[in-house]
């Protein structure tokens, strides 16, 4: 988005050589002063009244309005900016500018809509920090036209999500600073933020590492893997410091290196008999009937085949079904026909496999119990009730809000006493609804 804006500005500057008017704004007045908004943001203007009152909303929300079938919210800008607002009678029509934001349309009530004024964007001055009535972050500039001064409002900053994201962070930061050092409470925020705090340094470096892990490996740090990422950091720091290398991850190789100890055992290979025996302790005690397992992030299918072999060995009487899913089409498409080299397969699997010309593969009676799916966790949908979910090292590669969503869906779809198994370095941050039964380095949880 920001790039687009700068591109536009550059373009506008190019065009300016030919004509000096390259920025048009709709001007209006609020409490006797002149304001403008970028005409590109304005959908239309109209006279409207009789807004439907919305109870319990902020004072500046006048209500909602039916704009030819679309319901839009209506904001009174005068109240929003603490300006005196004329009381309007029951049936009076008021001037409304309808602005189009990225994802919604909002009506703004103003005193009077004036006209469209064209100016040169070069003549727009930055807002002065001592501006009175209106918070400076809502102003994109000041422009002069026909010896009148117009305050250009930044509609996105006022109503968009942009400001909402910035504000809480600032408050948080100032709060934490105040907690640490009550003595500098009165120092203006900008100044105190500039003072380097040595004990924050490693935090900041870890922060950078987390960001680069997202960039290079789409690894998202969250409460699920925070413990690991912190302990790995001290180890990493030592390793790199001794070798006189940069602490920061400079490329995809570094990122892979950093994550090398993150992965659970037997990633991308069949589980060993020992590991199967460990996991088997967590199989829910179901006496009979259908038993559904979901294995998201199955990749080429090694994990899914290991799971079905484990179940066949320990609970052959159950009516088993394993759903393996992955969003990497190439990997998951090869899973149903996965071939194994005889030497690389533990003896444990012998009874479930058959030899073919090109190598070992699983018996079709085993394969029939597995359904491999091309599926993106982003588009989670409902599926059959689950007894067990094995999702090792998958959540950490999802964005944080998606991590929560996936965990929520798992909790909803697991049967009572169903089991969830995460990667060895992952933990459930919120045990609400879960019982932690982790053991032997296996992160396992039972639904309560």
């Amino acid at each position, binding site marked *: 988005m920001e790039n687009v804006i700068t591109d536009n500005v550059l373009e506008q500057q190019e065009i300016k050589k030919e004509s000096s008017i390259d920025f048009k704004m709709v001007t209006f007045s609020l409490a006797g002063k002149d304001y403008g908004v970028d005409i590109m943001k304005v959908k239309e203007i109209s006279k409207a009244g009789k807004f439907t009152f919305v109870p319990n909303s902020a004072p500046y929300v006048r209500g909602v309005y039916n704009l030819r079938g679309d319901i839009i919210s209506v904001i009174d800008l005068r109240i929003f900016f603490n300006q005196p607002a004329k009381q309007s009678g029951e049936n009076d029509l008021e001037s409304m500018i309808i602005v189009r934001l990225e994802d919604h349309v909002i009506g703004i009530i103003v005193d009077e809509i004036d006209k469209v004024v064209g100016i040169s964007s070069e003549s727009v001055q930055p807002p002065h920090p001592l501006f009175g009535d209106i918070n400076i972050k809502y102003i994109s500039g000041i422009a002069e036209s026909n010896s009148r001064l117009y305050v250009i409002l930044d509609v996105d900053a006022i109503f968009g999500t942009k400001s909402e994201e910035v504000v809480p962070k600032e408050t948080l930061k100032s709060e934490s600073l105040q907690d640490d050092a009550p003595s500098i409470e009165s120092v203006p925020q900008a100044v105190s933020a500039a003072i380097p705090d040595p004990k924050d340094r490693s935090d900041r470096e870890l922060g950078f590492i987390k960001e680069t892990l997202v960039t290079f490996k789409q690894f998202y740090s969250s409460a699920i893997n925070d413990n690991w990422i912190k302990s790995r950091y001290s180890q990493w720091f030592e390793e790199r410091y001794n070798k006189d290398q940069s602490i920061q991850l400079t490329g995809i190789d570094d990122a892979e290196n950093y994550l090398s100890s993150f992965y659970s055992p037997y990633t991308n290979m069949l589980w060993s008999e020992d590991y199967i025996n460990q996991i088997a302790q967590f199989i829910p005690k179901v006496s009979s009937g259908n038993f559904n397992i979901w294995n998201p992030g199955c990749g080429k299918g090694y994990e899914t085949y290991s799971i079905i072999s484990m179940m066949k060995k320990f609970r052959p009487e159950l009516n088993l079904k394993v759903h393996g899913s992955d969003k990497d*089409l190439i990997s998951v498409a090869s899973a149903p026909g996965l071939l194994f080299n005889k030497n690389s397969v533990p003896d444990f699997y012998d009874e479930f496999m058959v030899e073919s010309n090109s190598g070992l593969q699983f018996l079709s009676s085993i394969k029939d119990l597995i359904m491999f799916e091309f599926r993106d966790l982003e588009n989670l949908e409902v599926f059959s009730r689950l007894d067990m979910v094995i999702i090792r090292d998958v959540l950490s590669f999802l964005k944080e809000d998606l991590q929560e969503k996936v965990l929520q869906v798992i909790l909803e779809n697991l049967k009572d006493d169903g089991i969830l198994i995460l990667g060895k370095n992952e933990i459930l941050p919120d045990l609400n609804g879960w019982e932690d039964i982790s053991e032997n380095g296996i992160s396992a949880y039972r639904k309560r």
Partner: protein
Amino acid sequence: MRVEYINPFVESAYSIMKEVLNAEVKRGDLYLKKSSQPVMGVAAIVGLAGDVEGRVLFDMDEKTAIDIASAMNGEVLTEIDDLAKATITELANMITAQAVTKLHDLGFRFDLTPQAIITGQNMRVTDMNVEALIVPFELPQGKVEINVAIRERA
């Protein structure tokens, strides 16, 4: 979507379009989508029933539809008339039927429902509780997207 279903649709779409249009067909990367998606202007839809439930949607803009129908009929059509509509539905039917035949050979039972064609501007399609696989194709006549949404019958 079950991985076994993907290839038959991709293969039959590719080979049939190549054959009936006698032209270079390029396949784009497959991807998954759930939320509602815009439809370009002309959409032929074929429903699936049997072991599974779902539908296949062939989506293209009006100009592409007219050009494809012209190429298949060997005459120049200028609007989406009955002949053009019949031609596009037939193309959808051929592709789906061949895919279903391939799936049948793999042991999956699918039935087709009568096909329909939908035309208009500014349309969207939303699938409830099922993820759609999008297979984009680039033809000399324009872009055709095959949108397959199938789920196992619970």
